[in-house]
């Protein structure tokens, strides 16, 4: 057992913090939250390239692909620092781990170094309007036609489609097969002809998010595919085995800092707010009942952290998850909800005031958070599905 950081890790943490303080400027944040169709835009792209130049996107990736061959824990530590300001730098999203695991040599050689440099980023085209949490029921079709696949269909919540260079798309390739066995995954450039991206604005869009964080990006997308033609080399892994490739990617995606930090950032915020001299009027520090609640939430947050540390320890030791990744995905979002509700009551009427409001607290951070708190219990599989996985895969309970 070792519950500490190495001093080299502490030093790296400080280095990352200094980088963020210098580069994560308000104009970057505003670009992310901009209402236009241009989304992340040039400033953020530059920032990602700078992060790539430092090698921080590839710490734990093999050297032959441009990574540093380092350990996953150090990678995690860097992710954690970026996650604090709302940036996900987990190695290019769920695309990269799946490409490493299932890609051809060509695919690895092409994508991994570019992901590590911050040049390529993937949007994830999984969910469809009719499917929701039941991913495997997807309808989007990919039909073989000579050397190509032709894709037709629709995806929803394609969250960074407007700012990504590439798409990581799940489509049905065999409509006759059982639903999990007729799905394939494709890698394609976002600018492939036939793709239309339509913005969907979330309720965190109005008014815009508080300053200093990109957490709660207010835009997601619907994406439409009309006779999108891509070469057969776009297929990732075996034909019709995409469900298993995708599930593996999702599982790996579940490990990491950003999932956990989204749910516990407010715990640090409320404590630090309560400690600030100017917050006496909020009656947090001087109210024993509120203090008890703050402590309760803080302890839960520690459990979130420790569950994440456990997952990282398992990955680092080369072990396999049974339920630990899913457990994180139950515990952290549900904690986030409990904390959100608790802090709303602590702040009383201040808790409802948004960023554009007079007299708000911390730029309306807590109110803004409240608008999206339930969301982390839905993304990437609802907490109930994750709980099923703990029970079925972790505890070996039979299916109902």
């Amino acid at each position, binding site marked *: 057992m070792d519950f500490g950081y190495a001093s080299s890790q502490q030093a790296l943490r400080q280095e990352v913090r200094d980088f963020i303080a210098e580069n994560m400027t308000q104009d970057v944040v505003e670009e992310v939250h901009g209402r236009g169709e241009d989304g992340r835009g040039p400033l953020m792209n530059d920032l990602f390239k700078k992060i790539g130049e430092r090698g921080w996107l590839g710490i734990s990736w093999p050297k032959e692909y441009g990574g540093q061959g380092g350990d996953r824990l150090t990678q995690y530590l860097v992710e954690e620092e970026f996650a604090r300001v709302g940036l996900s730098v987990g190695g290019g999203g769920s695309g990269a781990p799946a490409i490493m695991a299932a890609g051809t040599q060509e695919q690895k050689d092409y994508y991994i170094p570019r992901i590590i440099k911050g040049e390529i980023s993937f949007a994830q085209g999984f*969910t469809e309007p009719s499917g929701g*949490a039941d991913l495997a029921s997807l309808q989007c079709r990919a039909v073989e036609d000579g050397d190509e696949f032709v894709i037709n269909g629709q995806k929803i919540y394609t969250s960074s489609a407007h700012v990504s260079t590439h798409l990581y798309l799940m489509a049905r390739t065999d409509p006759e097969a059982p639903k999990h066995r007729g799905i394939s995954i494709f890698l394609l450039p976002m600018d492939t002809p036939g793709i239309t991206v339509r913005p969907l604005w979330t*309720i965190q869009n109005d008014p815009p998010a508080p300053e200093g964080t990109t957490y709660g990006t207010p835009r997601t997308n619907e994406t439409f595919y009309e006779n999108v033609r891509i070469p057969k080399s776009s297929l990732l892994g075996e034909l019709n085995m995409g469900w298993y490739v995708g599930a593996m990617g999702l599982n790996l995606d579940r490990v990491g800092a950003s999932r956990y930090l989204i749910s516990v950032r407010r715990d640090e915020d409320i404590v630090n707010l309560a400690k600030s001299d100017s917050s006496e009027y909020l009656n947090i520090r001087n109210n024993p*009942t509120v203090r008890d609640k703050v402590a309760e939430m803080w302890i839960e947050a520690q459990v979130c952290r420790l569950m994440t540390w456990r997952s990282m320890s398992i990955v680092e030791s080369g072990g396999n998850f049974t339920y630990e990744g899913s457990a994180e995905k139950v515990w952290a979002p549900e904690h986030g909800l409990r904390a959100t509700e608790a802090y*709303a009551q602590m702040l009383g009427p201040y808790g409802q005031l948004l960023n554009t*409001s*007079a007299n708000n607290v911390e730029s309306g951070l807590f109110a803004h958070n409240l608008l999206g708190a339930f969301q982390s219990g*839905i993304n990437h599989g609802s907490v109930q599905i994750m709980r099923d996985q703990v029970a079925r895969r972790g505890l070996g309970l039979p299916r109902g």
Partner: protein
Amino acid sequence: MDVLLSENEEMIRNLAREFLEGECPTSLVRDMEKDELGYSQDMWKKVASELGWTALSLPEQYGGLGEPLQFLGLIFEEVGRHMAPVPLLSTMVSALTIARDGSEAMKSDILPQVASGDLILTYSFQETDPRLIESAVQTTATADGGDFVLNGKKLFVDNFNQADKLIVTAKTGKGLTLFLVDTGSAGISTEKEVPTAKDKQFAVIFDNVKVSADSVIGEIDKGWTTAEYMLDLGAVFYASQMCGAARKDFEMGLEYSKNRVAFGRPIGAFQSVAHMLADAVMYIDGGELLTREAIWKMDQDQPYQVEVSQAKAFCNDKLQHVTVYSQMIHGGMGFMMEFDIHLWYRRVASWSMRMGSTFEHRARVAQGILDTPGNVELGMIQALPA
């Protein structure tokens, strides 16, 4: 004892529901969120002068219908259910406060205008320290000849921009005094607050605002009990609105769970979803029973403060869960501007933070049961300590 609605009560409720189902589509609710004024003048005219909501529970001698508050509580459930953009709550809390403690002249002047829908009112109490206790009031009213001069800042004032007059609680020499002040008085300025509910709230700043002595409600320096009544009305009617809103929100989640298919069956067939919905209906029922009991006690002239706090604390705590369940059942849709479900979510959340937090109301319940003489018994009368 019969905790169900009587025929009369059902009629009141159904009339309000039918009216709002017809006249208050979510498109209107959305429009009013963006509207600068923020309420439908047309609807206000109808509910006040045609349906008689503002007259309903005011005394008959001042143009009211003299019906119990219980009826008004049912109206607020419907207002919450439909998120009706009308300044009914702030007007009625203020008017009922005047009806209780205002001077004869004030009542004769103000209440008939409220009853007819010609006067919109609001009330203010909370300041920088937002607790609902006497000592948190820092706004001062200084005697100046026969008049008073107000200085200070009130926060979280509902509908100030819609109101003709507002009640101001201020420190006078030896206690608290309530004043009824024209919203257009010289020296008043505002700051716009934007709550997640996106209904209208303001901070109101008083800079040497002159008010005459006849604008005092109740006795000078002895306003705390009047203020408590006002705050209790606010708390319990907000609880009514929350119950109405949460029930509609739940019904939408329930409906969706019956139709949305995942993994080959309606998601409501999954025990985890079914149990979420079962919990939701029990939370709503519990909140509704507590709220209705509190209002009933007000009607009976029995002690009601513990009951009001029970209701608001429970609604704050549990109805937020209800709306979260509905959001989760709706999946990503719940998070999208273009679908309606968030309209209720944002309001229940916001209202749960108004007129006393769960912590504050529980502290008051604790006073009622722990700091009074004699043993307690569930279902028996429980007053706050003097």
